[in-house]
């Protein structure tokens, strides 16, 4: 146990990958073998979730700094180390990921009919890569995980996706890669600056936070480096006008892929802003605040408008993501605690609600093999349970009080109002548009007469599908009713994040020695 205690993060991180490698050895020639494989994979993701609950329990709510840290030299010649640890910002996204994985796996039982061994291997592999990106405290390590998760996602879309899967997979890969390569150049520059300013090589985040970079004007080092990082993260978020990969990838990906894309991968963009772009380049953030607020506001309204006219439910949900993630961006760039908190909460909410929406769309697609809104109507009568679940998730998505969405959007609007009234007004309009497209879609699919013969014999949710949806619905209400439970382990980290991003923390950190903060958290 002592070993597990000191390597808790690493164990949780690599458990899915190791589990997946054993999964590859299960013969899948028979139905029994395939069932074994599915159960095995599900157990792996549940075990990971259990470990992450242990992490939650070990995490000290009072601490603002990185906890449960581990560090091993990796490439000492360049100051690169394997360093993981988490603060509140990592914690909840980490838990979101481990929570969603069993759900995503369970939802694939029927949808995936060929090459299951590879499929489940890639899902667990993807989990390791995502978790790694959330806990990496070394920019090199972060970059490795950040790129690594493209590989499984590329195959998931490309092999098990819809009709235009190859195009979508390629677009997804290239789009994200181009953004991250410029970030890589910026990482080189930062690492080299550490050598210039402090005389030693290091790519550790805590060390890089201490860098002083010139930040006056648009051509300054901070500004250019910020743009390089922001490009990578804005593509991932995705921020208008860099969102065009998202509808393709979302629509073509298999259900579990869409869920993970929406729930976790998009969060990586927001997480990247919070962990890297903001604290590393505080002056540049102020410089570009206006631009990003404007882009975020445009994304909210634009995403909502485009979603409104989509004939395909999945595409509608995809564009709603663009709109919802716009809130995250304006919340972050408002640079005050209320908005930042709301922004972070919105990321979790979006993960749950949009994830659930994709699951529901996947379920109806499995039955009808179409996602056209016009192919449905009157579904409430044939699938009452499904309709109830859909209703709850829809309400959560349009931020009804009592659901999780309300807390996030309310806090964001409140905080943004302090930073920029115009943005807040536009964003509030977005809330209305959001209600319009979601409810309109709901009405066309669920109410009215059953116009299509095929719809009359649709089966309601099975036990397995209920098992997929109930955790999501519980999460929707839990987050809507008990937000303080989530905020308590988040507050100190958010305020530390803001101190760093507004430059207030520079003085404190310059005084402390480089990596002490990490070890202090370990109690040494």
């Amino acid at each position, binding site marked *: 146990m002592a070993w597990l205690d000191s390597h808790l993060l690493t164990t949780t991180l690599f458990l899915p990958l190791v589990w997946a490698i054993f999964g590859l050895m299960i013969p899948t020639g028979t139905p029994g073998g395939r069932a074994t494989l599915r159960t095995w994979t599900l157990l792996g993701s549940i075990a990971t979730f259990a470990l992450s609950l242990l992490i939650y329990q070990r995490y000290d709510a009072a601490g603002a700094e990185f906890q449960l840290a581990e560090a091993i*030299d*990796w*490439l*000492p*010649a*360049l100051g690169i180390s394997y360093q993981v640890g988490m603060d509140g910002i990592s914690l909840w996204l980490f838990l979101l990921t481990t929570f969603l994985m069993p759900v995503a796996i369970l939802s694939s039982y029927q949808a995936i009919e060929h090459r299951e061994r590879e499929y489940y291997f890639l899902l667990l592999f993807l989990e390791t890569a995502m978790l790694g990106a959330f806990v990496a405290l070394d920019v*090199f390590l972060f*970059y*490795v995980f950040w*790129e*690594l998760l*493209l*590989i499984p996602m*590329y*195959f998931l879309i*490309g*092999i098990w996706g819809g009709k235009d*899967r*190859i195009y979508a*997979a*390629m677009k997804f*890969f*290239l789009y994200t*890669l*181009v953004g991250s*390569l*410029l970030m*890589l*150049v910026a990482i*080189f*520059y930062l*690492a*080299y600056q550490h*050598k210039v300013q402090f005389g030693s090589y290091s790519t550790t985040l805590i060390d890089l936070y201490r860098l002083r970079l010139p930040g006056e004007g648009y051509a300054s080092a901070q500004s250019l480096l910020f743009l390089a990082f922001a490009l990578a993260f804005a593509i991932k978020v995705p921020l208008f006008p860099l969102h065009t990969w998202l509808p393709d990838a979302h629509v073509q990906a298999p259900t579990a892929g869409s869920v993970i894309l929406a729930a976790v991968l998009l969060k990586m963009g927001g997480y990247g802003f919070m962990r890297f772009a903001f604290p590393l380049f505080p002056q540049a953030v102020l410089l570009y605040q206006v631009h990003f607020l404007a882009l975020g506001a445009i994304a909210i309204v634009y995403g909502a408008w485009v979603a409104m006219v989509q004939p395909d439910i999945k595409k509608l949900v995809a564009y709603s993501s663009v709109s919802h993630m716009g809130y995250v961006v304006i919340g972050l760039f408002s640079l005050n605690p209320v908005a930042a908190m709301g922004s972070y909460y919105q990321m979790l909410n979006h993960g749950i609600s949009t994830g659930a929406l994709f699951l529901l769309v996947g379920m109806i697609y499995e039955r009808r093999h179409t996602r056209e809104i016009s192919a449905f109507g009157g579904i409430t009568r044939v699938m009452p349970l499904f309709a109830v679940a859909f209703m709850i998730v829809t309400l959560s998505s349009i931020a009804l009080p009592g659901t999780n969405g309300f807390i996030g959007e309310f806090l964001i609007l409140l905080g943004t109002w302090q930073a920029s009234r115009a943005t807040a007004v536009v964003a509030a309009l977005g809330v209305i548009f959001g209600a319009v497209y979601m409810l309109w879609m709901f009405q066309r699919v669920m109410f009215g007469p059953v116009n299509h013969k095929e719809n009359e014999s649709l089966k309601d949710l099975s036990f397995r599908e209920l098992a997929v949806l109930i955790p999501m619905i519980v999460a929707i209400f839990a987050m809507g009713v008990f937000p303080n439970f989530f905020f308590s382990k988040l507050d100190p980290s958010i305020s530390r994040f803001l101190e760093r991003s507004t430059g207030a923390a520079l003085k404190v950190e310059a005084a402390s020695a480089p990596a002490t903060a990490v070890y202090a958290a370990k109690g040494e």
Partner: protein
Amino acid sequence: MEALTTIRPELLTLTDGQLQALMPYFLVFGGISLAIIASVLRSLKPKWPVFILGMLTTIAGICSASGLLGSQAGSELIFNGMMVSDAYSNFFNIVFLASAAFTLLSSFRYLDHEQLQHPEYYVLVLFSALGMMLMASALDLIVLFIALELMSLSVYVLVGFRRADRRCNEAAMKYFILGSAASAILLYGSALLYGMTGSTNIRDILAFVQAHPQGLPVVYVLGAWLVLVGFLFKVATVPFHMWMPDVYEGAPTPVTGFMTTGLKAAAFAAFVRVLISAGYGKGLVTAVQSHFHDILWVSAVLTMLVGNIVALTQVNLKRMLAYSSIAHSGYILVGMIAGPGSEQGYAPVVMYLVAYAVMNLGAFVVLTILAGRDDSGLNLQDLAGLSRRHPWLSFAMGVFMFSMAGIPPTAGFAAKYLLFYSAVQANEIPLVIIAVLCSAISVYYYLRVLVYIYMRDPAGSPAASRVSVWSLVAVSAMVVLTLQIGILPAKMVSAAKKAVTSL
């Protein structure tokens, strides 16, 4: 030139240290001689003895070179300073011999299959490996030239090994003529340098340059240019790359693999050594230095752009990999430009050469297995649905493609990281931005291979290729190495560093 007129005994004897330093070369040469004898004993069915002798030779060479790498401190000048044995040359000796060994492994069944099983093949591979070894240790333009010819002549024959095939003949002819022209240019440049400086020894040439800080004579500059062009030709950088795609496409597949790894590493190894020994980066006057820098800069940018963009449209895999090989030469040039200005020096270049050799050789071994009669069936659409027929080969190809595209956790990523990092240190930021954007372009054509392998259905039901144990050993070794260098690069980095510090 007194050595020609008076006999000085100390030049004719070898000290113990020198003798030891020459062991890898002696071992390989001895092995080759035995293999020649074995191959003329036709009654013995020479295939097995020659193959085994060849493998033993490379293994013995690798062992003795790695022994030297461990024991040797500093560098040992041999033959009156015409050759040098140091960590750099021994490091590369291992690379060349390993590349030869894996080429032999992958060729064995291939030659049976193609009915080309002649023992000369193995002997020629070994001869050209010996030429490479000499190239990496040459410190004299004459030795360099002889080594280059030893390597090239053997490869000319290998390229045309499938005598009855037209494309193969065309490739060999083209390669021979253009390669000879390049050698001639190099030789002409050497002659001019000799004419100006009175020596063919590179260190004497450096001394001459340092003695003329005010400016160098025109003839010298012309000679240096020609030598540079000769090298750029050999490493196939734009605009001296025209020969490469045709040759790569026409040559038997394992030979192509050998060329992209061994030959390229050898040309770069010699290039780097000559350039550094001639004072590049340290010792050259600023004007000359920046002149060289500009030539390499332009060449690097053109090479990366042309290589990557033309590769986008290729449907034949060998041709695509040929253009990708050109592109990779461009990245390596970036490392050479960055060398003097960064603390890593040329270590990233060496590391990149190793990583490139590993992943590229791996990819070619896979292609060798898949190749149909007369190297047919190597177009993209022939790979459709390969993952059903050969799941493990497909996985291996996936690893190699991601590695060439520079995606972690592979050797290609670690090497690129180091290379571009050192270029940022040298303040070559525009060059790095061009380089990373070019490598973003390259991702498209590497991934397209995987699209065919994993995401498209095969036309009809093509039969699975037979996989020999030997090729399987080679592929697995390359997969393991690619991942190992990618995940734990520290060892390779320190080895590369050790190699370049001895320069």
